[in-house]
Structures are given as structure tokens and as C-alpha cells.
């Protein structure tokens, strides 16, 4: 029945491998996964490569080099369903911070031989280059959300991936609110749930690694941080520009705070 199995491909672009590792870390479920799909292309886990086309492609990482910009076009052609996984693939990730900076200057400063570096001036999400069917947020992705998404695809049902605020999950789990009880600048109210409120669980403010929730009111939260926690515009800018800074509407809001910081 092997030929009936879904063919799965896992690709890496500019990234830290953390999201692919989430897949490998699924110890209890990994055997079931391997039983349910055929791993056709997954260089991090398996040397053997099957020929395309593939049924499902998972893409980790952002497009940061000319080679990647070309490769993603071919990847799209090779996969029936394409899913970008993790902050890098869905927003550009940490490396997208260079989109506001002089990338050439960075190159000259950091590398002994900058002439060997062949990178684009910007790091951009997969969705900026090709059509993607699903996006899974998080830095790294939540392995159970990844499993849920693949399971839903295999069964042909809608995946249960919430888009509401982190606060909803935080409260369900009964964690003490750090914004209200500790005056910490928690991004939970504007951040999409999915991490099981990992940071508030350890009495720490959410730093937004799952990106913006479905309809974030960033300016109201920023106003509260400014009034109650003496948060300055440049601090607000940095809060927004971390893992998902290049993803709207975090991007636009961070540019707004940059502007008023300079005024």
C-alpha cells in the first residue's frame, strides 16, 4: 500500500532548524507519522530522496539569498499543498530585522570575507514569493499544532488552529496575568495563541513569537504600556520587532513607533 501513502517533503530555507526539530521531537507520535506518510524529502532526517511531485511540502525558513528565491519557485511546483512553518517562513523571522538596516554594512562588519556572502538585502516570508496553502506560526512552531495540521490534512478535515489572542489560552490555563499583577509589557493580548502560554506560565511577559492575533489593537496596548509601564516608543518598536516584526500589522505599527521616536 506504500504507493497510496501521502508523500511528504520538508524543506529548509534561511532558518535555525528549530521547526524541523519540532517534527523530530514528536517522539511518541513520530512512528505513527512515519507509518501514515511517506517521507519523500527531508534532508535533516533521511538521506534517501524520492522524486517529486509531493503531496505535502513543509517549508521552514525565509527567503534570504538569490538561490533561495529561485528554489522556492521550484518547491511550489513540486508540492500539491505547501505549508510554511515557523516565524521565519511566515514572517521573515529574526533575520528580517535587516530589512530596516543596511545589509551591506552588516556584511562588511561581521564577516572576514564578505565577498563569499551572497545574500539578498531583505529576508522575506515564503508567502511573499509563492502562494502558500497554510501557514503555521511560532518560533519554533508548536509540535502539536504541526501534528494537528498534518492529521487534519490526512483526514480531509479543517485543522483546529486558533487565531484568537494568547490571553484566552492563558486564562483557560489559570496562569496569573503578568500584565495586570506584575506590570510587565505582555504582548499576549495582540499575539496569536498556540504556544500554550509558555511565557506567562513562568511569570514572564509574552514576546509575541506567534505573531499578531486575528485583529490586534496594537495602539491601545502601546498606550497602556506607555502610561502604566513608562514604555518609550523605541522600546515598543523593539517589542514588536522581534520574531515577527516584518509581519503586518506588527510591521506597520513598529514603523509608527520608529517615526514618533525620532520626532
Amino acid at each position, binding site marked *: 500500500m506504500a504507493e497510496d501513502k501521502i508523500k511528504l517533503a520538508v524543506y529548509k530555507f534561511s532558518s535555525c532548524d528549530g521547526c524541523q526539530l519540532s517534527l523530530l521531537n514528536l517522539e511518541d*507520535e513520530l512512528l505513527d507519522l512515519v507509518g501514515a506518510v511517506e517521507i519523500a524529502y527531508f534532508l535533516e532526517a533521511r538521506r534517501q530522496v524520492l522524486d517529486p511531485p509531493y503531496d505535502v511540502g513543509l517549508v521552514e525558513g525565509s527567503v534570504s539569498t538569490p538561490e533561495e528565491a529561485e528554489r522556492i519557485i521550484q518547491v511550489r511546483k513540486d508540492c500539491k499543498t505547501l505549508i510554511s512553518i515557523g516565524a521565519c517562513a511566515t514572517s521573515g523571522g529574526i533575520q528580517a530585522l535587516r530589512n530596516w538596516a543596511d545589509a551591506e554594512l552588516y556584511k562588511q562588519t561581521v564577516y572576514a570575507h564578505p565577498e563569499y556572502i551572497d545574500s539578498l538585502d531583505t529576508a522575506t516570508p515564503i508567502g511573499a514569493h509563492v502562494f502558500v496553502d497554510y501557514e503555521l506560526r511560532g518560533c519554533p512552531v508548536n509540535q502539536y499544532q504541526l501534528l494537528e495540521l498534518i492529521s487534519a490534512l490526512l*483526514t480531509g478535515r479543517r485543522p483546529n488552529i486558533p487565531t484568537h489572542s494568547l490571553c484566552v489560552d492563558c486564562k*483557560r490555563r489559570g496562569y496569573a496575568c503578568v500584565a495586570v499583577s506584575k506590570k510587565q509589557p505582555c504582548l499576549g493580548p495582540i499575539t496569536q495563541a498556540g504556544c500554550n502560554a509558555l511565557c506567562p506560565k513562568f511569570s514572564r511577559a509574552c514576546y509575541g513569537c506567534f505573531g499578531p492575533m486575528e485583529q490586534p489593537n496594537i495602539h491601545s496596548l502601546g498606550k497602556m504600556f506607555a502610561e502604566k509601564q513608562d514604555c518609550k516608543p523605541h522600546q515598543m518598536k523593539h517589542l514588536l520587532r522581534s520574531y515577527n516584526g516584518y509581519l503586518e500589522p506588527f510591521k506597520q505599527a513598529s514603523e509608527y513607533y520608529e517615526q514618533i521616536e525620532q520626532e
Partner: protein
Amino acid sequence: MTKITIDHNTKAILDKKDFARLIKILQEQGYTVIGPHIVDDVVSLRPIDSVKDLPIGYEDEQEKGEYSVKKVDCQSYFQYVVGQDNPRRYFMPPSQRLMSFHVDKKQFVIDQGPPQAPKLAFLGLRACDLASIQIQDRVVGYGVESTFRCESDTYYGETRRQSILIAVNCTRPGNTCFCSSMNTGPKAKENFDIALTELRQSFIVEVGSEKGKKLAQKLPLKEASESDLELAELKLQNAAKHMGRQMETEQVRKLLNNTIEDSHWDKVADKCLSCGNCTMVCPTCFCCTVTDSTDITGTKISRTKEWESCFTHQFSYASGGPQRNTIKGRYRQWMRHKLCTWWDQFGSSGCVGCGRCITWCPVGIDITEEVETLRQSNKSLLNSNNLQEVTT
């Protein structure tokens, strides 16, 4: 144990040094005791083992969007009010696996059936909490002939039936409390098995039910003196005069039924994060979502029930999008449900004045202020006769 006769409405004295007995007895009777306990600097409602787990000597400070506790120099047991937890966490848990099963040779095999209801003793519920439980009873249809019943929930009913409710009257109301406006507190009037009023060295114990009577008979109670009772009464009268907040409820349904297009909703929407915190902490919110899920093999299936909020898109998602697509629409829905349409649906207010939504709103939106602002800008409207009494 007791020398005095205990009956319904009996008021007697329990010394603080004997308070540990109360918890012990409950445990001996197989109850899991749920009581106030400090978790990460917030008074929460959690399982407790002994009297040491109570926040003895602590006081809380609450403001809109602000909360803190501090140890004060006294041996008071209950000088704080409600925190972010509410009793519904136990009657309708925030996340609950309802059942799971797998497919074996084209047959469904049940792995886990409906969850077993626990036997809980609630210690230290406040008057507003008791009122919220009565409201939830009407929502779920527990113990009441209700034509409004929207769901029959056996887990809720069983937990409720097996539970014992030990209330504490509030002698130091919080800064965001307005239970006297909502006619629910600060003194517990009904729906308790036992109610306690804290004095310096002791508690006044008031019996409210047959279950409470049986428990009280096991306690080392003493006759309450006239002066003890007078002191307790005075403390409660004083508390009612020192509510942190007030809400004018006169004609509030009329007000909210006739201000749907008021520009003030836009102002609240500018501020509201649509984060859902208010609905999560509110003791009367009951909305839940049920999701079915399959595992990777497609042979194991589970059904989970979770708290849901009218502030999420999913809540009103139908035919291609959320029906309440704006934060304005969602805030208005929440507030009108609590204060206005709840009457049409369940025959009472949906707000008990506990103040949780005020304290735990990250940006400090205050339901009492919002009602007052709407009222002030619509005074002439309220005085006119040309108003809609009820809309649904």
C-alpha cells in the same frame, strides 16, 4: 462535638484555632477542598490541603487593570476579595476531554467516556460567587424549572449536587467591587451551605442548608453572644457602604436597547483589545466550544470542550466570516449580554458586580464607567417615552 443545638439559620461561633478542624472534616468526608491560595502573587481558587495554604494575613489592592497582594501585620484569614479565578473553573472546566474512542475492525471502541464529576468543598466563596452559581444553574438548567435552559450538562449537575458551598461574607470589599449595586452582596443571602463572617479571634458560622447543618454539627461551635452578632452585622453594613464602585441599574436595559448606534461604542472599541480576558474571568460567562479531533493515523478520535469568548472571530464565524467583524460589535455584544439581553434570555442580570472584568482587563476598561458615560450622554433619551422596552 457541639454543645449547642444547630438548626437552619443558626448563628454560632467557631474559634480561629479550630478552623483547621473544618478543613479536616471536609477531607475526611471525601471532599477535595477548593479555597483561596496565592499563585504567582494572585489570590486564586485552587485545591488546598490545610489551613496553611490560605493567604493568611494578606490583603489585596485592585484597580482597573491593576492587582497586587501584600502581607499586612495581622492574622486575618479572608481580608482580600476575589482574584482572577472564578467558581465555574470547577463546574465547567476551561478545557475538558468529553470522550475519546478508536476504530477497530470498523467498530467504534470507547477509550474514555464522559468525565467523572468530582466531590468539591468550596471554601471562601463570596456572595457574588454564590449569585454567579445561581445564574449558571439557570443557564445549565440545574435544579430549576427553566424554560430558558440552553444546555443540559450532567458534569455540571453532578459536580453541583456533590459540592458543598462555604461562603465568607466580605468585610473589606475590593476597589473594583460593586455587588451592592447588583443586589448580590457583600453579605451572602442564599445559596450557601455555611456562611462565615470573620471577627478578630473567631468566625460567626451561619447555617444555610441541611448539608450545612450536618457539617456544622461536627464543628466545635459555641453560642454567639449578642455583641459578637452585633459586631458582625456592623462590619457588613459598613462594607456595603464602602464598595469600590457603583452601577446605576435603573432603566439599564432601556438604555442599552436604545443606544446601539451610540458613538460611544467607537470610543470603547479604540481601547478594547478584544483579548477576551473579561469573558474568561467573568463568573457568569458560560460560552464553550466543542471540537473533534483525529490523530495522525485517522483511527483515534477525541472530543474536547473549551471555554470560548464572544471576543474571538471563531465565536460568530458563519458563512465565510465572523458575524461580529469589529471590536466595537464584540464589546457591545459582551456588555449588552451581561446587563441587558441576559434578562430576555434567563430572566436576570448576567452581571453580579464582582469587578473581575475591571481588574483583569489589561487596558482597564470599566463596565461601570461605560454604563455611566452612556447614561450621561443619553439622559434626554431616557426621559422620553419613545423608547423600545425590549429587543431581542
